[in-house]
């Protein structure tokens, strides 16, 4: 199911989304959701699958509840996968912002790029693009810092 969805160009759903929810915040949130959910879901599933089952079994046999099992075993072993998925999702979400706003929005950086392009204001187009690049780089850097902080216990490969 996830593989089939991943092979689908989610941007192609944009006309349908506009028909369903109209243009505005809902349309942008939905297209960003569609683009970002797959890398996150695929990585989250992989993360859960690669958790050492012996650890889960030991913790369960010692009486750990679901929440404790998650907090002490599943989450620490899943963090690299989850953060790698988040890094991918950040980039795809940026694509969603621009595409969603170009297609049907009067405000936002994507709309500004679209309007400036229509008026041949190439300097403004570049400002918009570079702003999105800068925001993306900052967000990925934040995720990498979090990754270094929470993954410090893992032995280097």
């Amino acid at each position, binding site marked *: 199911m996830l593989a089939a969805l991943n092979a689908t160009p989610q941007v192609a759903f944009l006309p349908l989304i506009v028909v369903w929810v109209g243009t505005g*915040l809902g349309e*942008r*949130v*939905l*297209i*960003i*959701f569609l683009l*970002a*959910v797959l890398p*996150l*879901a695929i*990585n*989250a*599933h992989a*993360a*859960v*699958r690669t*958790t050492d089952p012996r650890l*889960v*079994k030991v913790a*369960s*046999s010692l009486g750990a509840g*679901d*929440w404790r*099992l*998650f907090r002490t075993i*599943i989450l620490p072993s899943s963090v690299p996968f*989850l953060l790698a*998925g*988040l890094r991918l*999702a*950040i980039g795809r*979400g*940026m694509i*969603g*912002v621009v595409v*969603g*706003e170009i297609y049907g*929005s009067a*405000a*936002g*950086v*994507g*709309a*500004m790029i679209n309007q400036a392009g229509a008026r*041949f*204001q*190439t*300097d*403004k*187009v*570049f*400002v*918009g693009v*570079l*702003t999105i690049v800068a*925001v993306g780089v900052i967000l990925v850097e934040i995720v990498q810092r979090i990754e270094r902080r929470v993954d410090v216990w893992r032995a280097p490969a």
Partner: protein
Amino acid sequence: MAAGPAPIMTDAADGGRNSMSSTGLMRAASDELQMPATLRWYLAHERAILGTLVVMLFLIGWEGLERGWWADALRPLLGASAERLRLKPIFISSPTLIAAAAFRMFFVTGEIWRDLAWSGVGYVLGLGLASRSAFRSASPRAGIGASPTRSNRCSRRSTPRRKSHSCR
């Protein structure tokens, strides 16, 4: 038979296989100390220097295309065809024009802040919803996170009490 002291492995003795031998390290350290300070500073920051240089060259090349520097410089060699190297600003802007527009949009008119805020709201909501959905979809696979379902309970083979009353 008593083992004698281990022989000191030199570069020649190990056939150069171990490039990090103590002799090699000492030689490298002494070579480094004999270098001029400028060269040592360059080697320490080589990646940053070369990266900056490439970006600067790219920006200068771009600026020259828009301002016609290369067309003017190459006209004696290429003649009228050098005009192809002069690009109109509506097709490709220049780094200085972009910097000026960015300054105007961020600090003079402030028009981009409203657009950034508008885009940011959608982005945060979409990404937050995606993270939540992805995590919720993965959680039942391990029997954690979400509220226990029939399949979760049945997958926990280590708890026979639960298995006995609900997984038949």
